[in-house]
């Protein structure tokens, strides 16, 4: 039997350990620095990201290499990466900022960057940019270093810069070149989608950027690539259309290809219920219901999965998706990417683009170190590291002139059109995207799921036009409330 003194000692020990753990976990950085707990280098730079070293070995390699290279150049800085899931970013960031444990730098999606800035969470970078005009070209991270389509989501209308683009993303059509090549053997129209080698032979490793001329051409080609069984059911899709969730995301690039915009640049009005938008919506719905080139709508089966299983000839994905497709399909690389062909009101191939960025928080205590980190990651060197480890193309002009990019295109021919795709992008909708999606996406979902009923006059909406106008009116309310809120914040901060 344990003696009372020994029992008391054991309980006291456990209590001390528990109290110590709680105290250490609850310490703010200021307190830790004051006490000198866990201090290795003078400056600790806390970086948040939703990219995770634990996702796969490539991300692990990237973060390891990035940390090592940056710390070698900056011996005073200790970079600490913290991974925050994409879906929890907003709550966790607000909590961390309020709780005085903020990151210094984080990757901000265009989904939230503008809102974060207006709430006062992000530090304006204009002063650092102005002081950095004489930087070496490879280290310069001002506007002129970036593709115009990359430098769009990172500043206010009045020109205050709050983020530096780290990547450039665009929606694109991804084509299964195995399927196209097989069809091209007997079909001249499909053979024309491939470029020619200098000797006149067909280059089956690439797809022409402007191979698909317009929507009718797209409809015809996907119809030819669709395989149906005797009952008419699609066994191999010419194109995959999602209705649930991501389906609404496809609307934006098709809208852009028809010369339309989702919203105005000031974020005050939804513009998608225009004739351009109605035509785009009808076109998408008709691909499914009239042309029947798509598989049935299934929530648990994504278009990406169908494509990787080679059960679809064409899907909508991002320009970043190549390496993921290759990894998930155990090495398959025979696919190509194009922008969206023009609709009746569009001119030339179009899409939507966005550039997620690195930002510095207002509560960052070592802005100088944070700025050095931004310069490193968003400079040419960081772009090349992401190309090497993650297969990404970069948002910078000079990236496309490097050996590394030429080599990447040789190694992975599906990258060949990526720069062109990024250059023909409209700016992705940018004001309160999550709230806007909450208003508009269910309407788009209804149109796609119930198009025949809507046309027959017994659907949830009298027409596609009415449905889109209702969605646009609700989105306008989101903008109105958001802008009123921004005004109140500015007044409160004395900036208006």
């Amino acid at each position, binding site marked *: 039997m344990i003696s009372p003194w020994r029992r008391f000692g054991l309980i006291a020990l456990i209590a001390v350990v528990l109290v110590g753990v709680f105290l250490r976990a609850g310490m703010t950085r200021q307190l830790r620095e004051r006490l000198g707990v866990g201090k290795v280098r003078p400056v600790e730079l806390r970086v948040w990201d939703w990219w995770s070293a634990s996702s796969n070995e490539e991300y692990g390699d990237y973060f390891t290499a990035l940390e090592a290279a940056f710390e070698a150049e900056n011996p005073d800085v200790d970079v600490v990466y913290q991974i925050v899931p994409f879906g929890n970013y*907003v*709550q966790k*960031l*607000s*909590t961390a*900022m*309020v709780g005085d444990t903020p990151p210094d730098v984080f990757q901000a999606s265009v989904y939230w960057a503008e*809102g974060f800035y*207006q*709430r*006062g*969470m992000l530090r304006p970078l204009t002063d650092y940019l102005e002081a950095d005009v004489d930087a070496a070209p490879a280290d310069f991270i001002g506007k002129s270093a970036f593709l115009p389509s990359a430098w769009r989501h990172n500043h206010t209308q009045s020109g205050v810069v709050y983020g530096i683009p780290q990547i450039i993303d665009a929606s694109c059509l991804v084509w299964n070149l195995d399927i196209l090549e097989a069809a091209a053997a007997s079909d001249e129209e499909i053979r024309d989608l491939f470029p020619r080698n200098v000797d006149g032979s067909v280059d089956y490793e690439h797809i022409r950027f402007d191979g698909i001329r317009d929507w009718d051409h797209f409809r015809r080609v996907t119809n030819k690539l669709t395989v149906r069984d005797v009952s008419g059911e699609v066994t191999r899709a010419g194109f995959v259309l999602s*209705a*649930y*969730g991501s389906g609404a995301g496809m609307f934006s690039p098709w809208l852009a290809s028809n010369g339309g915009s989702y919203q105005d640049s000031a974020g005050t009005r939804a513009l998608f219920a225009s004739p351009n938008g109605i035509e785009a919506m009808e076109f998408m719905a008709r691909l499914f219901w009239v042309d029947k080139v798509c598989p049935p*709508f*299934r*929530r*648990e*089966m994504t278009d990406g999965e169908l494509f990787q299983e080679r059960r679809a000839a064409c899907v909508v994905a991002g320009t970043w998706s190549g390496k993921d497709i290759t990894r998930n399909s155990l090495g398959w690389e025979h696919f190509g990417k194009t922008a969206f062909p023009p609709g009746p009101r569009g001119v030339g191939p179009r899409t939507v683009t966005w550039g997620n960025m690195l930002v510095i928080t207002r509560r960052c205590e070592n802005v100088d170190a944070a700025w050095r980190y931004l310069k490193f990651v968003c400079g040419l060197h960081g772009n090349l590291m992401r190309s090497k480890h993650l297969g990404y193309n970069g948002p910078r002009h000079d990236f496309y002139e490097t050996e590394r990019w030429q080599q990447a295109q040789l190694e992975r021919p599906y990258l060949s059109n990526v720069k062109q795709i990024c250059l023909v992008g409209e700016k992705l909708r940018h004001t*309160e995207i*999550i*709230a806007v999606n*909450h*208003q508009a996406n*269910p309407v788009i*979902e*209804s149109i796609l*799921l119930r198009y025949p009923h809507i046309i027959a006059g017994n659907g*949830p909406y009298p027409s596609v036009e009415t449905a889109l106008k209702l969605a646009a*009116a*609700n989105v306008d*309310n*989101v903008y109105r*409330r*958001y802008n009123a*809120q921004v005004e*109140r*914040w500015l*007044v*409160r901060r004395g900036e208006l």
Partner: protein
Amino acid sequence: MPQSVGQKLLPYLYVAPALGVACLFSFVSMGISLWVSFHHYDAFAGSSAYAGLENYRRALFEQDSYFWLAMRHTLVYVGLSVAGVLITSLPLALLCLRARYWQSLFRTLYFLPSITPGVVLALVFFHIFGNYGQLLDRTWSALPALALLGIWAGAGYNMVIFLAGLTEIPQFLYDAAHVDGANRWQQFRHVTSPMLSNTLIFVTVMTIIGSFQVFTSVYIMTSGGPERSTEVIAYSIFINAFAVAGQMGYASALAWLLFAVIFIFVFVQMRIFRSRRVYDE
């Protein structure tokens, strides 16, 4: 002998720690949330202006508010869940009680879903419902499918509660009923059922409260779709509170409206059950 002041204070000292925690983490936060509901508020930026009843008016009357739609879906979910839980838990408890062997094994097996994280259950059922019948893809079946998951996950827990209630019923009542010639059904109707009324009230009330707050399965499996057919009130609160800048006040107003509805439901239910109570301790 009169009690000293110290003796009088002692019971209050005993409850003080629990009361302090409850005050800090429940009542104080509830008070803050009530205050927030009358303001234009953001989790980071704080309060920017007094809004009065604006957030409540918007929730109840504005054209683009989904409060009533979400409340209707929530009520359907609550109805399905309560019915489902009562239909499954009580028979399971009766069966377990009668099991001659392995009673504790059955109890454990049925209880397992209750201790499995909701996210894990939601992910598993997402694929089950997707592969068998595509229940989440149709507007008429998505909400019942979510309720089915809720019933399955909660049946074991409620079974244990019913089991505890059943074991409390004195055996001599059954013996007397048996002597009077009552068959199994009559024993259940005239002995088990009335003697379980307190347990029944508890299970029903807890199921109603829990179902009104359903969130995880909606968030993981449907995100409120298809076509808003599974948009429930807790999901609306979450979207407005954490995904939209500056809408914490509106989300808090939604939360207080939910509180009011739950309060009314439980209050009415307690009154009804109390008037029908046939047995008291």
